[in-house]
């Protein structure tokens, strides 16, 4: 079934929408959740929560890119679970390493509690990712959106792990420089 047909089922409030979404995207969403949570049960729970949130979101929302829409939701739910779990000191897996890597980009960056500042920052980062070479951008997205391991990214793009690590490090440095130029640092 195409994404368009699945979305139509949601719009008709037909419960087969969830069934079809699960059939087509369970593995995809599960892998995103598992990269963040590093726990099968928690990841499965995140995926189930994702279906519910999608059911509540469509309509009124009509995602243009259904797969990306699902990725964002499952990532958001999984990260919330991660934070809750971290409070109980149960954190581990790729996410901790990825977060530590991101830390070098945020040291000195002011808080973005205001919604409009946050939106501007999102826009700035999107512009940055569009303006760097495609491969660099893809590696960054796989690592910091999908929280994929370095080994998995290396395999995906047929690169050596060391090259992936170096590439990501350079991109993070460039991102920080870009954010400094854009005035996000005090």
């Amino acid at each position, binding site marked *: 079934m195409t994404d368009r047909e699945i979305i139509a089922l949601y719009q008709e409030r037909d419960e087969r929408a969830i069934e079809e979404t699960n059939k087509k995207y369970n593995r995809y969403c599960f892998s995103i959740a598992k990269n963040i949570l590093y726990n099968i049960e928690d990841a499965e729970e995140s995926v189930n929560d994702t279906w519910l949130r999608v059911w509540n979101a469509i309509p009124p929302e009509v995602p243009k890119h259904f797969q990306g829409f699902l*990725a*964002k939701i499952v990532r958001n739910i999984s990260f919330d679970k991660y934070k809750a779990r971290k409070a109980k000191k149960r954190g581990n897996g790729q996410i901790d390493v*990825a977060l530590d890597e*991101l830390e070098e*980009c945020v040291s000195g960056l002011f808080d973005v509690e205001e919604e409009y500042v946050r939106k501007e920052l*999102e826009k700035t980062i999107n512009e940055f990712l569009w303006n760097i070479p495609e491969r660099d951008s*893809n590696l960054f*997205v796989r690592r910091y959106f999908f929280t994929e391991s370095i080994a998995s990214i290396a395999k995906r793009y047929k690169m050596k792990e060391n090259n992936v690590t170096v590439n990501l490090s350079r991109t993070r440095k460039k991102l920080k420089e870009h954010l400094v130029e854009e005035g996000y640092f005090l």
Partner: protein
Amino acid sequence: MKKEDLFEVLENIDDQLIQRSEGEAKVKSKVIPFLVKASIIATCAGFVMYVGTHFYGGSNDVGRLGLNVEETGQMVESENATISLMPAYGFTMNDRVYFPISFEERREFGLIGENDSGLTAENTYVIEQKDIGEKIGEVEASENDKIIGLSVYHFNTFPTDDRIVILENEGKFAFYVSSNINLE
């Protein structure tokens, strides 16, 4: 700003950027007619016969013959690293054909050192519970009836890659690699 905040900001990167990162790596698999499925299964059977006739030859002395362990059709990975004898049958699942991993594929997936020239007990990757990823499905067809219906899992090092999978057989695990042939 905390690193967690930046991670959350990254949630809203453009859909097209997400899509693009998916797209670059996709490998187009060769689509072949359904009728060819039967001959692929036959090929799996033929592979076993070939292994039995030319390699296995009634001997278990892998070192003496100078062969890779998997070429002899033995399942080598298990939780306790024991080597158990098992014919090297292929199988089909989700319209793909899987064969036991070869030595070169072990190298490709980083399961063996760059300089290793043969598979030994020392350099054989031992599959542990932490390596077992999400269940992908079950063996649908194989010349070996005993593995039909057994569970197949992702390898956690490549959690989204359907090419390399792990077959569980009575508590023992073995790598299989897709031939990249799509039977749809």
